[in-house]
């Protein structure tokens, strides 16, 4: 009977697809568990000071690679603060920069741009989103860094910090600018989408009350689209945290904690975030203590990504009552 065989076929399909879904779930679970299990030795031997400052990260990593413990310390001695600080600096600066730019750009795209301009801007944003990170890195290290080195960093400034660090243009500024260019398209796409879907009557109501278009956008559209702006920021932050290759190429390659007390020089000091460090040290994954340290960095990235997506979810909860799902 066709119907009965159809039902059996149905069940078989559902089970097969369900098994695949469970396999994906298991895979992700396995990934999280594996990373943490492998990270544990590094955390347990360093304790909470793993996250703290203390010494030169690069020396510590080299010590692990050469299996010669630093004098007075364990082989797995590691203080990740310069890398964490580098991650924070590049991410926060880039996201703040990109947030301002992308809100303005999204408003422009949805409200002010005449049709021909809009038709140009949309492919431009898709293009910026599509450029591979290694190409961004290449542009950063071969075009932007020399430019900054020649025109923005004076010799006096270089000499003032020459005893700790060499300034060569591959620095916090370059990293931040390129990172911002990389995450802006993501945010523009999401924010513009939200602005487009603000119910027309709400905006019409505002305009009908004699409010000009700019105020309408700020007071009605942007305010309603707030959850989407939060979601876009969260997504962009996750991207910025995880960006490895571009930052490994651009951000100076030294595990140096840029010091805000250095005044403007701070902006030209090299930084190296966690993800970039993982890429640069990946050769050492066969050496046990170094591998544990690398997995510990990966675990930190995983936890931050998870916290971010939770924060994004939580920020959107109160807005559900208005029928907004973002």
């Amino acid at each position, binding site marked *: 009977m066709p119907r009965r065989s159809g039902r059996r076929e149905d069940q078989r399909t559902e089970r097969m697809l369900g098994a695949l879904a469970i396999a994906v779930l298991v895979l992700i679970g396995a990934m999280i568990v594996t990373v943490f299990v492998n990270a544990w030795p590094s955390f347990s031997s360093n304790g909470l000071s793993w996250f703290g400052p203390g010494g030169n990260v690069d020396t510590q990593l080299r010590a692990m690679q050469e299996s010669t413990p630093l004098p007075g310390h364990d082989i797995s001695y590691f203080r990740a603060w310069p890398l964490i600080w580098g991650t924070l600096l590049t991410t926060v600066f880039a996201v703040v920069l990109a947030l301002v730019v992308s809100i303005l750009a999204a408003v422009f795209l949805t409200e002010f741009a005449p049709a021909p301009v809009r038709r140009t801007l949309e492919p431009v944003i898709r293009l910026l989103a599509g*450029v591979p990170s290694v190409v961004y890195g290449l542009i950063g290290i071969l075009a932007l860094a020399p430019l900054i080195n020649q025109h923005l960093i004076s010799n006096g400034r270089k000499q003032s910090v020459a005893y700790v660090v060499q300034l060569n243009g591959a620095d916090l500024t370059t990293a931040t600018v390129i990172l911002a260019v990389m995450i802006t398209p993501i945010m523009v796409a999401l924010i513009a989408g939200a602005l487009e879907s603000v119910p027309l009557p709400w905006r019409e109501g505002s305009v009908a009350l004699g409010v000009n278009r700019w105020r309408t956008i700020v007071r009605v559209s942007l305010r309603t689209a707030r959850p989407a702006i939060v979601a876009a920021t969260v997504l962009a932050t996750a991207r910025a945290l*995880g960006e490895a290759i571009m930052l490994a190429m651009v951000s100076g390659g030294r595990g140096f904690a840029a010091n805000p007390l250095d005044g403007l020089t701070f902006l030209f000091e090299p930084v190296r975030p966690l993800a970039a460090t993982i890429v640069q040290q990946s050769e050492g994954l066969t050496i046990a203590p170094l591998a544990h340290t690398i997995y510990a960095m990966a675990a930190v990235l995983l936890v931050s990504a998870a916290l971010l997506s939770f924060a994004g979810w939580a920020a959107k909860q109160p807005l559900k009552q208005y029928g907004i799902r973002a």
Partner: protein
Amino acid sequence: MEAGGLVPAPARPIVVRPRRQSSASWPLIDRIGYWLCWATGIALCLIALAIVVFMFVKGIAYLRPALFVKSPAPSLQQSQSGGFLDPIVGTLIITAIGTVIAAPAGVALAVWISEYGRPVSLARAVESAIDVIAGVPSVVLAIFGLLVFSESFLGFLSQNAVNGSVYGRSFFAAGIVMAILALPLIVGSTREALAQVPDRVREASYALGKSRASTIRWVLLPSIRPQIASGIALGMGRIIGDTAIITILLGVTLTTEGVGSVPLIGTLRGTGSTLTSYVYNNSPAGEGNAPQKAYAAAFVLLMVVLALNALVTRLTGGRERGGRLSALRRALTSRRPQWTR
């Protein structure tokens, strides 16, 4: 019947803009905001223009036809260090492996989530897992992959060292992890498309005595073919552009180094390079430091990615709800941002 004829092409939302209002009467601060918007829009265009022009100028200056047919060779002289034949082949292999795995798996997952999705808690969990994949940095995926493929029972996918340990780096390993990377994009596109198929289409099929499975196979999937294709193209773009997984999981040797004597399998178990890792290694950050080669390869890479982008636009074209950025948006979130009234 044209492809996708079952889904009525949704009209693009008619954005009724207020009649052009002169900003001259606005307060100063509003006018500043207005002009800042224009400035940002133009600045973004200029940045993109600068990137494209820069890569064109540098790329064409250093691109030689010979680069496409020569293998890379170790040399300090940029004129002696060969071309990027092997990296191009490597990119093709990795993309093929990744797509062959990710496309069916992604479509199947999307179908399960939107057409079956029972029990609901499991469906929610799977959705979150896919979001996790989309959010996890690819370096983390890569080092997880290295750990998995270094297990001895997976030794047949890479090479075994003399002392019995498994190397864990091969085209197989990199391709499979790339498939995980591309999965969320394909799932997202397919789910979005399935959600747009009206229920009456399904009901009509059931009324004709079709089972759910055959409705999916013969009615739903054929009608959303272009959207699936665009999801796959997006996934391929992600695979081609990723570098972290390659540098960690492909063992980045200059040329494609096969293992053993079996021709195809041997290559796939071996190590090699792709365009992205070639650019990375030839940049000042890598070991080769041959900027001319890096520019030329980056130009080729950019062209490939732009071509894929154009393909996505063509596939989704004007028949897509939500304007031209919606493909990009879908690539970013597998959940649909929307207003429910």
